[in-house]
Structure formats: C-alpha cells, structure tokens
C-alpha cells in the first residue's frame, strides 16, 4: 500500500515533460560527465520526494543538473560545486548531510548505539562468571516442561 503512495508521488513528479539526464545536457568530456553524475546522485531534487537530481525528471532537477555541469566546466572542484548549491539552496539540497552543529547527533547515533550495545554485552558477560552457565533447569522450569510433555493432547491448566 505504501509503495503505492510512493508511486503516486514519484509519478506526480513525472508529470513534468523532461526526463532524467538527457543527451543534450551531457558533457563531451567523459571524466567531467562522470563527476557530474556522481555529484548529481548526492543532490536532492528539491521539489520531489527523496529523489536525487540524477534520478528525477522534474524541470528543477534538469536545471540543477545543467548548473552542476556549468560549474564543473568553469573549473570548480566537486566540493566547490556542492558548496555553490548549498549557498543557494541550503543544506537541504545535500542527500548526505555534512557534519555540523545540527547533524553531529545524527552522525554519532549509530556508532554510539553500537558502542553502548557492546558495552552492555561486556558488562553482562563480566557480571556472571563463565562456567556458571552450566546450571541445570530450575525446579520451576522442570515442572512446566513436565506438564507440557504430559498433557500433549489436552490443554494444560494453569501451572
């Protein structure tokens, strides 16, 4: 169902006449063109849902693709092209957010979770010395299991 909605969204975006990268936009220099594609894949099509300008068919995406290529031809580095677009459209245009005062929590979230999980496991394994794991089933468990195996044909009443 949700896929359906994505679909509607994406198809609405398709309503504009242009389609993604078209031959008339492409640069003659294959190295520059390759860089342009790579940069485009990381830039958000601002009027679409979660699409890069490289994938998008919106007019705005086409304009941005041409803009990226113009900057590259003018001799900008990849970082300069990105900065140029951020200056114009804000951080929102970057699909991969840069590390700054607003995004550091996002970037440290996964490593922190992993470290916390590892720490938790380490503490848990230290608390109980190895070897004490050799315990047998408790009385309680043996009783439950015994009941279960006895009454395989009828429902076990409350234990």
């Amino acid at each position: 169902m949700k896929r359906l909605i994505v679909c509607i969204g994406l198809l609405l975006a398709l309503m504009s006449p242009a389609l993604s990268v078209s031959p008339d936009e492409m640069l003659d220099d294959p190295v520059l063109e390759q860089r342009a594609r790579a940069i485009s894949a990381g830039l958000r099509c601002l009027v679409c849902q979660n699409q890069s300008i490289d994938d998008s068919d919106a007019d705005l995406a086409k304009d941005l693709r041409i803009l990226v290529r113009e900057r590259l031809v003018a001799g900008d580095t990849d970082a300069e092209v990105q900065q140029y677009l951020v200056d114009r459209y804000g951080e929102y245009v970057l699909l991969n957010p840069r590390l700054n005062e607003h995004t550091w929590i996002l970037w440290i979230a996964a490593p922190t979770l992993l470290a916390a999980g590892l720490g938790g496991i380490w503490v848990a394994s230290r608390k109980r010395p190895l070897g004490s794991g050799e315990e047998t089933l408790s009385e309680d468990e043996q009783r439950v299991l015994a009941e279960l195996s006895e009454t395989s044909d009828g429902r076990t009443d409350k234990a």
Partner: protein
Amino acid sequence: MSIELGHFALILACAIALMSAIGGLTLWRSGERLASVLAQSAILQFVLVAVAFLAVVQAFATSDFSLALAANNSHSLKPMIFKISGVWGNHEGSLLLWILILVLFGALVAAFGRRLPADLLNLVLGTQSLLVVAFGGFTLFTSNPFARLAQPPIEGADLNPILQDIGLAIHPPLLYAGYVGFSICFSFAIAALISGRIDQAWARWVRPWTMLSWIFLTLGIAMGSYWAYYELGWGGWWFWDPVENASFMPWLAGTALLHSALVMEKRNALKIWTIFLSIITFSLSLLGTFLVRSGILTSVHTFASDPTRGLVILAILAVLIGGAFLLFALRASALRQGGLFAPISREGALILNNLFLATAVGAILVGTLYPLILDALVGTTISVGAPFFDLTFGALMAPLLLIVPFGPLLPWKRADMLAAGQRLVGAAGLAVFLTILVSALGGVSISLAPLGLLLGFWVTFGAFAELIERGRIGRIPARESLRRLAGLPRSIWSTAIGHMGLGLTVLGIVSVTAWETELVTTLNPGETTELAGYTVAFDDFAQIPGPNYMADTGHFTLTAPDGGTSKLDAERRTYVASGMPTTEAAIATFGLSQFYLQLGEPLDNTHVIRIWHKPYILLIWLGAIVMAGAGVLSLTDRRLRVGAPQRAARQTMEPAE
C-alpha cells in the same frame, strides 16, 4: 443492505473484542473456562470482520456506487481483479484489511493454541482483542468504509490507472500479513510481562508466529522492491525512502527476534531482551502502517491528509506503544533473568547478530526521523538520503555478514573458534578465489566491490559448511552422506538455506551496484547502438491507442553477445483523462541478468533512449524468495509446528556439547 450488514458486523466484532479484552486482561487467572470463551470470541471476531470485509468487496465487485468508498475508488469497466484490489487501494479499505488480518491471526492462535497454558492464552487473546478494539474503533469513528451516498453517481471516479497493477493486488496484503503477524509476538510479550512468567516454552510458542510474519514481510518487501523496479521506469530497486524504511525496520527487528528467541529457547537466556524485541518489532510495524500514513512524516505518502485522523492514530500509537514500554519498565525486573553466555559460543554469535541488527534498526530510525525532529526543534531543514543510509547500514552489515557463517558452526555454551574456522576454510578459499576471478574479469569500478563480493560469496558458501560437516561429505561414502543429510532436522536445512539466500541477495546487490552499465543516447528508427556487448536495434516507432491512453511505442531488437535475439517494446503512455504520462520500460531477462530499456522523450526529431544492463540483478529478489522458502521449511519442522510444544522437554534436555 449488505453494506449495513457489514457495518453492523464490524460494530459487533468490536463490541465482542471489547468484552474479550476486558475479560482476558482482568480475569486471566480464571484458567480453562475463560480460555475457551475467549477462543470462541476470537473466532467469532474473525467471522464478523470477514463479513464486513466481504460486504465492501461485494460493493466494489458489483460496482455499487451508493457506497461512497466504491464511488471514489472504483469504476464499472475495471477488470474484476482491480475492482477487488481497489478495496484496499485507499485509506478506509486498507484499514479494514489490516483489521481482517489482525482478527485472522487472533483466530489462528485460538485454533492452534489449545495447548498453551490457559493463563497465557487468556492474556494473549485479551491483548489481541484490545488491538482489535483500538483499530476497529478508529475505523468506525474516523474512517468509516461503509458510508453511503444519498445520490449515488452513475459511474465511479476510478482508481489511479498506474495503481491498476497486479503488484498492488498482492503487495499490500503480504506486507500487512507481515506487520500484523508481529502483533502475536507483542501479545505474547505483554502476557509474559503481566503474568511475570516466561520460560523456554514461551520462546518455542512465539517463534513460529515470528517466523510466519517474517516470511510474509520478506516476500512483501521483495515484491514491493521489484514492483518499483519495473514500474517506476529508471531501474532503481531501493530508495531508502521513509516508506521503505518503515517496512524494513520491522523486518530487521523481526530477524533479530527470530535469532534471540532461538537463544532463549535453547539456553533460557536473553529473556528480557527477547520481550523487548517483541514489543519493538510490533511497534515498528505500527509505525510502518500508520505513522507514515498519518501525514506527519511526509505528506506525499499519505492517503488521508485529514489531521484529525493523524492525531487519533498518533494517540493510539502513543497509548499502545507507551503502555507496552511502561509495562516493560515496571515488570521486566520481575522476570527471572536466566542469561549466561560465553563470548565464543553459538549464543555469543547470536548476541552479536542481535547487536548489529538492533543497531541497524536504530540507525535507520534515527536517519528517518532526524530531519523531522530537527525541523520541529531547531527549524533547520536537512535531507537524510540514500548516501547516508548506504554508508551507515553498509558499515553495520559488513561485520554481521562476516560472522553469519560462524554462527551455526559454534556449539552452544562454549565453543572453539579455531575448530569452526577450520570447517570454513573451504568456503573462505572458494570466496577469495571467486572474488579475485570476478574482479579480474569484471574490472573494479568501485573500490569496495571486491569486499562486497567476498562477503556475499562467504555467506553463500559458508551456509553449506554445517551441512558438509553433519553429512560428513567427502569423509564417508556419498550414499551414506546423502542418508545422513536427509535425516538432518529441517531446522538445520532451513538455517543453511536461509543464510544462503542472504548471501545471494548480497551478491545481487554488489553485482548491480558495481557492474551496472548505462547508456543514454539518441536513436532513430533503423539505427543501432551497443551496450555491454549487446546490440540494440531500433526497429520502428508507432503511436498506438490503448484502452484509455495513447502510447508512443518503440519496437527494439536486442542481440545478445551469443547471438540470441529478443524483442523489446517500450512505451510512453499519456492517459487521456488525466493527461498523465507514464513510461513502460521494456525488460529482457538473460539468466539472472536483465536488460532494461526506456523510451525517453522526443528530442530534435529523434528519440532519447536510456538503456541499462543490470548484471545478476535477479539475485536480489531470488535471495529473498530463498530466505522466505527457508522460513517455510523451518515451519514444517515438527518441533516448531505452530502451537505444538509437546516435544519441548526432550529438546531442552538435550545434553550440551
């Protein structure tokens, strides 16, 4: 008349569910007699909701446009299959389907759970009924699918033509069955927390339900991905869209739950964690179904932008999820903690599995919600897109994939890493050899490609190590090995096959990411072009009228390197009524690889053609199907058969190695 009957049936189902919920959750100690009442109630709820659902289906099938829902979403000339699938192609109908699956699972527990202890069954069915009350009430009060029109229109407004696809008919029910199935795990967790009793038998009962839901969710996600791939027209198969993330998170959490329940069942450890995972998995499912749709996350994915509905849904989620976690916080310490493990052991490996999967869920959740929260708190808008998720998720999955083949080879309690490693020497050698071979033949376009390949081959071949070991293949006569293999428990086979499926999916992803080739060019009828050794000839171009659209059709002939040819017809359709253009890509399959051709817009009297060669892309979905198949195999293992714990004693008393 039947509409009102359906409406009444749903109201009645909710009323009965309310009584079940109150009875089950307050009088759960009453044992056997209450249990049989609740079981009957669960089955009755299913029958009543089925009546309600069929009433709506009938209105759609017979094009009864006095039903507002049918008038808004159906059309008398639509093929029957799309009339029926149109029932859940909208907010109200999809809610009704969701509830139908919910009561179906409740009825299944009632039917197959007769061997559960009565107290546990009371609590499980009580909790399940509470969910029916919450969502049934939401449907009746805010999203009534049974509303009639005083002046029915002669013709319906029709479902969006793009949605009239077989994919839509199957994808949502599969996904919903997966989401809703996890409600059983949730109810079992709530039951354990309330009763304060949780043991290995509990894990044994929960696992088949987890497995069943996981199978549905696996297939649902894979199908959605393939549908997007062929329908959206540029060959992408995963976009890290919030909607996809919302279905992927319960899948990851459910996968973790499958593995942690295994530890609990065999070693009586990880109890509290397993309870926590059960709650979180269903909470993520609810998030997947409703939060995305409530209009809070992104507006485009919402059926209903009615803010009241969104708020009510948020309130229900807050009460259910918040209540569950409150109960968890209050009661978890009362559960007797088992839980002992050595770092190098089967349970140690499974704990690492859970660590990486849970961290991945956390990372995706943070990435999905972060822009929203930042915007609300600071007012800064940022994007978190595919590059971020690729990096974070990839970094977490690489170590997980590395340990996957070790898991099944390590004995419980205390294991010898070296011994496990020795059994994997063959798989490792084969993986290294094939990685070098493929990289040499295919070239290294992305520096990480060989690492991805290595992991993919490693998981795929490593999956067989336990079978080779147990079958003593190569050490005893082949006939004897076969006999041993055939005699192995199905759970061992399903582990091997499931892990192999994972490896295949990884290989498909790596292959298509690293070696996909693309060509964007202009072409006229009569001209040819080449990509990846294939020749594409543009035979002719025609404008062909379809039933409700005009199609620009390009006919192409594709010649493979081995000389085989296939016809490709790509279309650009313009729907007459809406003026909406769509592209129908042409796809040719060669083995596991696909050739994907899209007819672009006209440009200076010629045609823009986009062609992709996608090597081994089918492995992505094939791997998912193999994983789901392994799940089915595991369900047929009689030790795991739904609600059949009678063999528990023998299994748990198994001597440790």
